[in-house]
């Protein structure tokens, strides 16, 4: 199969998957009772309730309701958030920016630490650094994020007072021009390094908490693929040429070991997106995750549906990019597909 064909096939599958996800999300909203439950009050008469049902098309058949809802979603209408008393689509952007900033930093931490740890352990197989890497990796994959967040909070917020809660000091952030909604980037664009320091201080704890799980997964994969590469003939050839071990690992083995790790890095995006739910709750971060937990606890179905839909679309797109990148890097994927 040609690479163009492979990409075309993956692109054609995307709308099918998105449609499938939309059916699941719509189905969910109809499993848990009336989707207008949050708008109904005790004082309302049956006639008033019937009027609301009529207004939202709940007397139509389920397929008709689905088509109407999907049409709205495609026009950018994601419904009304009962929790925030505003249209969901209006609330989405600022919250998405807050989550994006957190997820990108957490992802960066995970990639740098994960590849570093994996290389460090894999190049010293069955020695102390390797055992330590394996223990850390398996612990990182087993640790409940909500618990790790609370433990870090006890140490760094309560005991040491190093890291503040929330997203930024309001007095600092209001003095700069919000170009993008990403506080770190806005601070740089405004050349205000005091604001940048404040944004990073707020980001540090939640980003580390969120990144630990992904770090563990990446380190594990990097270690095992490096171990595999180091047993290949070309590595023996490089050593036989008299190259120092450092160069053999960095220039030869690590480059090839990075290929399967890229796939795992893509998959950890799902892990990061999930992490936002509890991390934002614990650190009072005003992003999508915090919004979702508020909606869950108050039964705000429009917000829950929008959140699941948006997260899945991001997840699908990231996976598509990863698959295509991987296919470019390793043509065997395309040939085997």
């Amino acid at each position, binding site marked *: 199969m040609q690479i163009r064909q492979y990409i075309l096939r993956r692109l054609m599958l995307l709308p099918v998957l998105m449609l499938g996800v939309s059916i699941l999300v719509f189905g969910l909203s109809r499993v848990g009772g009336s989707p207008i439950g949050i708008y109904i009050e005790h004082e309302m008469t049956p006639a008033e309730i019937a009027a609301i049902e009529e207004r939202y098309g709940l007397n139509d058949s389920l397929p008709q309701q689905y088509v109407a809802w999907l049409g709205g979603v495609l026009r950018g209408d994601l419904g009304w958030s009962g929790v925030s008393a505003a249209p969901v689509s209006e609330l989405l952007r600022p919250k998405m920016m807050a989550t994006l900033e957190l997820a990108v930093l957490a992802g960066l931490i995970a990639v740098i630490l994960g590849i570093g740890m994996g290389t460090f352990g894999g190049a010293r197989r069955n020695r102390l650094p390797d055992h330590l890497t394996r223990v850390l990796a398996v612990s990182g*994959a087993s640790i*409940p994020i909500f618990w790790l967040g609370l433990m870090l909070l006890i140490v760094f917020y309560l005991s040491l007072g190093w890291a503040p809660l929330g997203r930024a000091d309001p007095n600092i952030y209001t003095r700069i021009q919000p170009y993008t909604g990403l506080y770190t980037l806005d601070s740089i664009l405004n050349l205000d390094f005091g604001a940048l320091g404040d944004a990073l201080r707020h980001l540090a704890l939640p980003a580390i908490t969120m990144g630990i799980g992904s770090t563990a997964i990446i380190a594990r994969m990097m270690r095992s693929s490096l171990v595999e590469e180091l047993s290949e003939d070309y590595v023996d050839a490089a050593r036989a040429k008299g190259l120092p071990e450092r160069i053999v690992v960095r220039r030869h083995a690590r480059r090839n070991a990075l290929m399967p790790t890229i796939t795992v890095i893509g998959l950890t995006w799902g892990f990061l997106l*999930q992490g936002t739910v509890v991390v934002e709750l*614990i650190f009072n971060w005003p992003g999508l995750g915090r919004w979702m*937990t508020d909606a869950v606890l108050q039964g705000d179905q429009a917000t829950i549906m929008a959140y699941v839909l948006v997260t899945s679309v991001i997840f699908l797109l990231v996976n598509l990019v990863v698959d295509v990148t991987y296919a470019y890097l390793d043509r065997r994927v395309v040939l085997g597909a």
Partner: protein
Amino acid sequence: MSVSAQAPTVTSRGRRLRSFQVRMRRVGELSRDALRNPTTLLGTIIVLALVLMAILAPVLVDANEPDPYQMPRDFAAVNAPPGSPDHVLGTTPTGGDVLYGIVWGSRNSLRLSLIVVSITVAIGIAVGSLAGFLGGRWDSFLMRIVDVFLSIPELIFALAIAAVLGPAFRNIILAIAVVFWVKYARIVRGQIIRVKQNDYVDAARVIGDSRWRIYLKDVLPNSITPVVVQATLDMGHVVLIGATLSFIGLAEAGLAEWGNLVSEGQSGIIAGRWWVATFSGAMVFLWALAFNLLGDGLRDALDPRTEGR
């Protein structure tokens, strides 16, 4: 006449017994191999200890009446620190004994993981077998459904399902089961397609075995290894997700469950009352860690190519 009619039955029963004995001997060898690894041994010991704690919960701590899964309250000892006379690990802000929550929480974790893993393995084997064994349109159709389920990050999907079903522990069990079966379907399908290509399957077909018999006798038993490894890892992973959902507030209030306890202890942390969240969260960690160590060890033992990697 009657002898000739019975003879094949006796032979096939004997063959089945012998094949069972060979399998059991192989399981014994693999267990010994796996337990030679110190981390696997450690994982196994912790798993056994935790499962034992869950089974012996009524012996270890007196069960609360009428519902032992609800925390008993001692309103005279609210927020008692660890080491208090009647409460070794302290109490919650509503007077719940942390030790009781930890011991009975292990029972809830065992309940959650056993129910979810058995349901999801059964559904996964059924769907994966249908797709892998029938192939063609059935395979494409079932795998597209699997792809759709895999398009939503698992915690978020489970959270949304549990949210629409309402806060209850049984809804958490249901939500996680709905999300987790797809992994097994995909694993089983892949394995079956691989195993189907072996010569012994062709041989069985040539001697006239039915498709059902070939599936049960030759294909399924040889496809099950990665399912066992995944199920072991999921015994830990399911508890991690379940605890996260109850931490968010999707279990019944006052349930003796580790995530619930962390949530109850969270508010006290600012005031320096660290024990409720710390002890109960550590139990979730220990549970997931033990099953991860055991699962990794099993994978190494069952697939020697990955050993030491």
